[in-house]
């Protein structure tokens, strides 16, 4: 049975207002750009979006902000986005800032059936407020909860028809943990190969986590900060 679909629009058909969507990517690298555009076009509102960043004003998750589709954002760093600032200050947008490692681990835990875990990250800071504190071997930790999303949007480099995934370089970032944490995980890739064509040793994410696979074309892969040698 192949998980490969041809239409981005039909792949996200079941997403309704108020859904929680976890989105892979770091900055604009490794973001599921075609799925985000499809979601923008669908226009569903009041979304809770979990992602390390929130795109820039006119690209990535910034497109959903521009269209006022996001009610709550859970992220670690949102500094690249003026629309975000406007909507946050006007009270349209709710924000939960989570330390980056805690965010990654909350997704990993959610996908692995671990409801909560303890970490030293955030102890003694605003992040710790209202959270359970516990001491292990003389050091204080706080409890953080796993995150599960109604949907997960993932960008990988290659997939086979079962949904086994291979990522490329640092475009991997949050995508593997995001893939595990969605009730429905939808993946877009640059290339699909037949089952058996990926070496089992090279697969980063097992297809067990993946429900739908789409192939995107003409990837923009916008660069946020182009830096070159001797520049």
């Amino acid at each position: 049975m192949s998980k490969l679909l041809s239409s981005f629009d039909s792949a996200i058909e079941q997403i309704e207002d108020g859904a929680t969507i976890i989105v892979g990517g770091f900055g604009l690298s490794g973001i599921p750009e075609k799925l985000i555009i499809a979601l923008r076009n669908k226009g569903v509102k009041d979304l809770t979006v979990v992602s390390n960043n929130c795109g820039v004003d006119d690209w990535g998750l910034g497109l959903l902000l521009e269209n006022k589709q996001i009610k709550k954002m859970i992220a670690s760093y949102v500094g690249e986005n003026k629309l975000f600032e406007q909507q946050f200050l006007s009270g349209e947008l709710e924000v939960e800032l989570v330390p980056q490692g805690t965010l990654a681990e909350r997704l990993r835990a959610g996908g692995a059936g671990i409801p909560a875990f303890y970490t030293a990250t955030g102890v003694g800071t605003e992040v710790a407020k209202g959270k359970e504190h516990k001491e292990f071997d003389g050091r204080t930790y706080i409890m953080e909860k796993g995150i599960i999303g109604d949907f997960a949007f993932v960008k990988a480099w290659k997939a086979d028809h079962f949904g086994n995934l291979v990522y490329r370089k640092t475009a991997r970032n949050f995508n593997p943990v995001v893939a595990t944490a969605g009730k429905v995980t939808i993946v877009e890739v640059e290339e699909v190969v037949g089952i058996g064509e990926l070496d089992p040793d090279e697969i980063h994410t097992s297809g067990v986590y993946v429900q739908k696979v789409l192939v995107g074309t003409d990837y923009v892969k916008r660069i946020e900060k182009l830096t070159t040698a001797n520049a």
Partner: protein
Amino acid sequence: MTRQLILERAVKEIQDGMCVNLGIGMPTLIANMIPDDFNVMLQSENGLLGIGPYPQKDEVDPDLINAGKETVTAKAGASFFDSAESFAMIRGGHIDLAILGGMEVSETGDLANWMIPGKMVKGMGGAMDLVQGAKRIVVIMDHVNKHGESKVKKSCTLPLTGEKVVHCLITELAVFHFTDAGMELIELQNGVTLDEVKSKTEADFTISPSIEIRA
């Protein structure tokens, strides 16, 4: 130039064979100053251990960036991994050293470097994880703010990134170490007097015997 002075002192914290995380902004500049004969692996928390130099124009790859979202390369021996594993490295104590920028440091080694109340909050990124997880935390910053007020405080006034997490503070005036016994001045930058450091430091600190002799 004060920035150059701070960076030149900070690079001396890096030893051959270390795995090091350099914070975004000023700390990133230290990468170019590491001695060529050192085998140092720089970690980027978006999933790369072994950051190489910036790419030539024809090598630029949007799938290969550092935590500051700059295009980079991967050096020989580098590895890629996902964000959860990246922070497992950090939180699990596998990164030898993190060099981070600071807004305020207190005499007990508290660090504030992620938000200023009343200004737009950008987020802490990986800073709170790094200060708790890396084996050694070095903070580099200007000694005073633009109003001439000490950024080396009795206690931080800005929201904390971590409590009692700083091991070493390097400014354009001096270098301090932090232990359970408190904060100790261990070096004066070239041409700086003990009196100047005292007058520009709000925090209480002890003075290393080696400095008493020089002063």
